[in-house]
């Protein structure tokens, strides 16, 4: 659509009603199914991501109950193995990715002054493909036993190393559900990423050159490119696995001469960029929230962009650091140790620039800012344990131990999930028109932060003491009991935190204070329209002259464009 010829009075003819009032259940479902609006789809992504989050979180809770004491009989070994597989797969593919796409969907068009994504129907297609891939994965609990009456949900771990996935070792259909679900989800991710790239490159409003885009948009652009590069290897190895399992191909069938290590290369060529696909959106949210609540522009915008592009670029050449123990040559191990250590440089720059942004500001400790501060501290720990893991010899001790479990939960919860909470509290007033309740949010913040550290910090120590990951039980007397017990106790706090979060979402929607257009006194374009924004986003397409268009409006005496 050419924005210049947009007619704000044009009304899309309403689809024929099925004799129902607006607001009734049928009507709501009809709207959800038919919608191609980027904001509704964005919220649907986030909403379904949160539902999967609760399901996968309950699985994690059951895992922690089983591990609270040695030789516990709470879960059977197979049930436990299914839980950690489903927990990991769901958290990465059904929680992390969709929530990120939800934010991207909701915010990118608003931030660049567009009326919708470039391909609205492709957008809806992407959502529904993701949604059904999630249902397919969970349906394995019912469908996978099949005629074999063997297996249930997948139990091969979220990276499903071959040949554990071969017919000989994984009977029934559990692995088939896993692989088909990921293949399907991959299609959704790729089309959504293409949509995001086209939207960002083609639909920016007048004046918004690439160098004036909000950092959020920049980072989402980088993420979308990473998805397009990283997803095809995953889809390729899923197709190879399907051929192995259904058509008698022998790619990964070691008993017929296939290669077990081949799968690992394919998977981690996807899997490592995936880590950055998950964490860069966290950076993106922090880069919006920290400046606004520090009352200063981001420190070193060009360097922040360059560092993000560099992280993405380096992340494509580090995959085998997941495979240091697989028996590569010393040259191979050295190469991947070096490339991995290089990631520390741009990542360090980003942390310093966020601190530089706060320096000299007037920090307002609203909910989004609290979560971002916790994010900075936790991501620092995650980054430093990442440096330890990059040292290949140290990694020979740490890999596949509870230390790694602690490390990536510090990345994905301490890094990503905390910024997601920050993002939800930050844009909640924009999306729903109501302010999130501060007291409930504060309870959520304190309980969840405390619980998070109680759960995951002791796991570093369990790893140092030789505890491997993915074991359903352990003997007493190996020094692991106390750390596991503490870790399990932390879950209570985390669960209570999540409870207050959910209560807050519902409570504030009904009883929250009216938000107004721009409750945080922010500077990017989404705050220039009403809360919630109309389906066409802006009455007139805005025009920008700097990175902070609303700052220019609010401070005509001292606009940004004078300095950029």
């Amino acid at each position, binding site marked *: 659509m050419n924005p210049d010829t947009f007619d704000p009075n044009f009304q899309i003819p309403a689809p024929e009603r099925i004799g129902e009032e607006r607001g009734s259940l049928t009507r709501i479902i009809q709207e959800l199914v038919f919608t191609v609006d980027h904001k509704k789809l964005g919220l649907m992504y986030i909403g379904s991501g949160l539902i999967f989050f609760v399901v996968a979180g309950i699985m994690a809770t059951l895992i922690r109950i089983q591990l609270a004491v040695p030789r516990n009989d709470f879960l059977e070994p197979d049930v436990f193995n299914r839980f950690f597989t489903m927990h990991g797969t769901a958290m990465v593919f059904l929680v992390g990715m969709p929530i990120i796409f939800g934010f991207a969907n909701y915010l990118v068009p608003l931030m660049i002054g567009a009326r919708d994504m470039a391909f609205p129907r492709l957008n809806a297609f992407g959502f529904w493909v993701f949604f059904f891939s999630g249902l397919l994965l969970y349906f394995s609990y019912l469908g996978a036993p099949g005629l074999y009456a063997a297996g249930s949900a997948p139990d091969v771990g979220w990276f499903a190393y071959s040949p554990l996935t071969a017919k000989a070792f994984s009977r029934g259909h559990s692995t088939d559900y896993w692989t088909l679900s990921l293949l399907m989800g991959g299609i959704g991710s790729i089309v959504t990423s293409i949509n995001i790239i086209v939207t960002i490159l083609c639909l920016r409003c007048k004046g918004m050159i690439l160098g004036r885009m909000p950092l959020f948009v920049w980072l989402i652009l980088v993420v979308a490119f990473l998805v397009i590069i990283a997803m095809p290897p995953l889809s390729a190895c899923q197709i190879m696995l399907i051929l192995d399992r259904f058509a008698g191909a022998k790619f990964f069938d070691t*008993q017929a001469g296939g290669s077990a290590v081949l799968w690992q290369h394919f998977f981690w060529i996807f899997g490592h960029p995936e880590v950055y696909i998950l964490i860069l959106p966290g950076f993106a949210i922090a880069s919006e929230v920290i400046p606004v609540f520090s009352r*200063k522009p981001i420190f070193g915008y060009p360097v922040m962009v360059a560092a993000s592009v560099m992280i993405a670029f380096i992340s494509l050449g580090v995959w085998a650091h997941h495979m240091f123990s697989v*028996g590569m040559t010393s040259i191979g191990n050295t190469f991947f140790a070096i490339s991995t250590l290089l990631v520390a440089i741009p990542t360090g720059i980003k942390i310093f620039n966020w601190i*530089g942004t706060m320096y000299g500001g007037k920090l307002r400790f609203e909910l989004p800012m609290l979560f971002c501060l916790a994010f900075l501290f936790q991501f620092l720990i995650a980054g430093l344990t990442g440096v330890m893991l990059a040292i290949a010899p140290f990694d020979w001790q740490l890999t596949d131990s509870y230390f790694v479990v602690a490390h990536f939960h510090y990345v994905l919860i301490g890094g990503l999930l905390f910024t997601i909470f920050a993002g939800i509290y930050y844009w909640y007033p924009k999306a729903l028109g109501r302010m999130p309740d501060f007291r409930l949010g504060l309870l959520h913040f304190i309980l969840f932060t405390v619980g998070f550290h109680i759960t995951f910090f002791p796991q570093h120590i369990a790893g140092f*003491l030789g505890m491997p990951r993915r074991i359903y039980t352990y003997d007493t007397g190996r*020094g692991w009991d106390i750390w596991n017990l503490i870790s399990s106790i932390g879950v209570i706090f985390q669960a209570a935190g999540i409870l207050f979060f959910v209560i807050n979402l519902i409570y504030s929607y009904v009883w929250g204070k009216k938000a107004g257009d721009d409750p945080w006194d922010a500077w990017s374009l989404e705050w220039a329209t009403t809360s919630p924004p109309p389906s066409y986003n802006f009455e007139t397409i805005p025009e920008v002259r700097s990175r902070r268009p609303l700052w220019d409006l609010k401070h005509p005496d001292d606009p940004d464009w004078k300095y950029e």
Partner: protein
Amino acid sequence: MLQGWSGWASGPGAVLLLMALVPHAFAQAVTGGEMRPIADIFQPLSRPAEMIHESAILVLAITAGIFIVVTAMLIFVVWKFRRKGAEDDLKEPPQIYGSTHIELAWTVIPILITFVLILVTSRTIGEIQNAKMPEDALKVRLVGHQWWWEVHYPDLGIITANEIHVPVSSRDGKKRPTHIILESADVIHSFWVPQLAGKTDLVPNRANQTWIEPFATGTFFGNCAEYCGTQHANMLLRVIVQEPEDFEKWVANMKQPPLTPESGLAAQGHRDFYANACVSCHRVDGTVAEGVFGPDLTKLMTRQTIGAGVADLTPKTLRAWVRDPQDLKTGCLMPDMKLLDSEVDSITAYLLTLK
């Protein structure tokens, strides 16, 4: 009639009786020296683990330094520039867009630190992976199975399972490294005995290798460290490091052909063992039992554990295992053999003589 009697006398009673008759089984089982169940990677007692430990300490020191500096910066900034009251909302702070000098500084310093880490890492990788094994190094071939370890000593002609005996090295005297070849019969497993060496995977169709050079005797605890299916948790490994003379004694005992029990329950058990399907999967050196799918049972009673570490090896656990392995280790590949109680007793009695 006989069946009826043994049925009545079966269970713990009969086993306790056997314990009295074969006291040697237990003297043998505890020759592992000091137990070292706390597998702390910061208390290495062998060469590669010590080398890893040295680089780990350096990395920990560097990262701890970075952590303290950055956390201090963060706390300082958050405290110093917090909103102090409503009057702070009236005027925006000075708008600073960046500073080339400062940004250059915090780019160069991380680059220097990274450079140091790269040098240390490259060196340690080379030292561990490219270490030359002396000609007389003990060779062990370790084959991973779902969910146990097959241990070969190709030069000594010994096969055993789940416990590796090796000689100790002296720090300033004779070095007795063990060169371990790692293979897998089914899926990927990983060798990890934290106080001796870091992980190396056992990958099907591939022969990986690692080495250890322990400086202390005792029983070192390890685990399979790569998820390998249902009973990954109970795929435990022990390395028993012994004084060279004790190791030689162990080798000599392993090579002694087993005695065939002449009379009593054990003799009945001997017949039952060879008449049942046991020999299809298990091997007892010097007998017709040549199975390769299950753990080797030669000198079974010299071992510390049963079921790859799922329980301590005692007549009680042995009997429980023979009766139904699925009770002790749900999902393990040895099925419930549906033996009669009399057979369970007799076979247990026979196995107790393997020492």
